[in-house]
């Protein structure tokens, strides 16, 4: 279980332009499920995903993953946590231009110092799983948007993380490609991964594989819905 207790995040705290992006978020997220944070632009989805993934620190509150409290971790431990427990998929993919697809996928594993041959084999297996193995030697900028999305999913999985965090993953995809992406996420959940998605795309939070939808607005939870159950405030 990922447990969030009274999470808030204020940018420019103490300044005249202080902005509270999240306020009093208390939530329990089950592991091995797909949860979608839905809400309009500026509702706090990205901030919340960043905090859960250890990429940002909250202004107040704590997050526990299983037995481990993560918000108080010193940076060196937080880096290890990000590398080992989370895989990130971004709206703009954030692939590195000028290097190959294979190198992009292998990149997050380099700090772990694994055997390069084993790492390469694993990266190729992941690319094969997404039907883009033949593009492994191509510079990443040669790929289409959908192919780049699959490369970014392969990259997120290279360290075999328990949790995949995807922020607006379908924003630049057409409906078919968005469905393909969601099929991949559903497959990952069936394989035991926890998937957390931030999206304002109805296709995403209406997807059959989604187990839970948490609606955010102005940094607050305005509704939680388990699939097949009525909404609650």
């Amino acid at each position: 279980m990922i447990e969030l207790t009274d999470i808030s995040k204020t940018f420019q705290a103490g300044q005249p332009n202080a902005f509270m992006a999240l306020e009093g978020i208390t939530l329990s997220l089950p592991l091995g499920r797909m949860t979608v944070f839905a809400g309009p632009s500026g509702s706090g989805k990205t901030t919340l995903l960043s905090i859960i993934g250890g990429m940002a620190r909250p202004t107040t509150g704590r997050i526990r993953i299983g037995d481990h409290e993560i918000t108080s971790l010193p940076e060196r431990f937080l880096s290890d946590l990000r590398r080992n427990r989370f895989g990130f998929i971004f709206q703009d993919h954030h692939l590195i231009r000028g290097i190959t697809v294979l190198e992009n996928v292998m990149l997050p594993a380099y700090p772990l110092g694994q055997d390069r041959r084993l790492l390469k084999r694993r990266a190729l297996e992941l690319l094969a799983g997404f039907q883009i193995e033949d593009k492994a030697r191509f510079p990443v900028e040669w790929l289409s948007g959908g192919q780049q999305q699959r490369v970014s999913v392969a990259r997120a999985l290279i360290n075999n993380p328990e949790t995949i965090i995807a922020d607006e993953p379908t924003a630049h995809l057409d409906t078919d490609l968005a469905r393909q992406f969601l099929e991949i996420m559903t497959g990952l959940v069936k394989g035991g991964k926890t998937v957390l998605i931030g999206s304002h795309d109805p296709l995403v939070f209406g997807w059959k594989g989604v187990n839970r939808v948490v609606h955010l607005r102005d940094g607050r939870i305005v509704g939680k819905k388990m699939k097949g159950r009525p909404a609650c405030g």
Partner: protein
Amino acid sequence: MNPAVLALSFGGILACIAAGYGTQLGIAILRRWNLTSGSERQLALERKTYLVSVLLGWVMIFEFLSLFMFVHTADHLHALFVGAMCAAGTLTVNEYGYPALILKILNAVLCGLWMLINHADTRAPDYPLIRVKYAAVLIIAALLVIENGFQLGYWMHLNPNVITSCCGILFSTGGQTVAADLAHLPPAGTMMVFFASLMGVVGMALCFYRTGRGARVLAVMSGWFFILALTSILSFISVYIYQLPTHHCPFCLLQREYGYIGYPLYGSLLIGGIAGMGIGVLDRFKGIDSLTAVIPKIQHRLCLTVLIGFAIFGGIAVYPMIFSDFKLIGY
């Protein structure tokens, strides 16, 4: 003004300001630190402690280096004072010189130990030594302010009209100081105690390196050897390096005529001494859950540092005894 004096003065003032900031955070941590709380204040303290620990780490490194810079500068200034031949004479120009030096040595040791505690603390995920670390900052910050007060007092009261004494007088048999008394301890007896202690501390370090036992004994022996080695430099090591039976000055070793041999001599002793004492300090915390795996690794590396540091020191001390024609026997 001499550029080195300005650098030391401004560096010291900056160190005091940084230590003051660290003290402010230290008081807040000692009063309000509560890792179970998710309050804004607690999270702000957690974020600040990274910054302040890094800042204080640099202050400690500066403090360590400033000890050598201070002596070097005092030595460099000897030409301004009638009678002075090295830092020994320059530091007696006013009543602030030697207290500033002693405080700098003390602070260098304390800063070294603090850096070891900080290193151990940052290797655990739950800030196990945060209170100890910041309680120590309060003491070190106070000593830093006093030390820099003495240092500034020393620079401001340098009067070129004062006729001072050279090291030959200060460390002569007729000298009325503790240093003069130490310089004239019986060489044979001092050498015996020195070599017995050196062998003892190296033997204990080897034992600890292999078994991991005896950390606190090694720490006490390292502290003892650190003080004894300083005394031995006055008593016979300097004499062998100068090859002059009446020259006991601990500062001329830092001059070009003697190949600046004092810097590696004192540097290796200081590093070895701090590492040895640090093994004992850290041993007190190895029962903390998050440090049980961390501290033995640090102690192991520190033990290697003790062996290397004291081996270099011993090598420099022994070299002229073996390879020069000078023999102290009979003096």
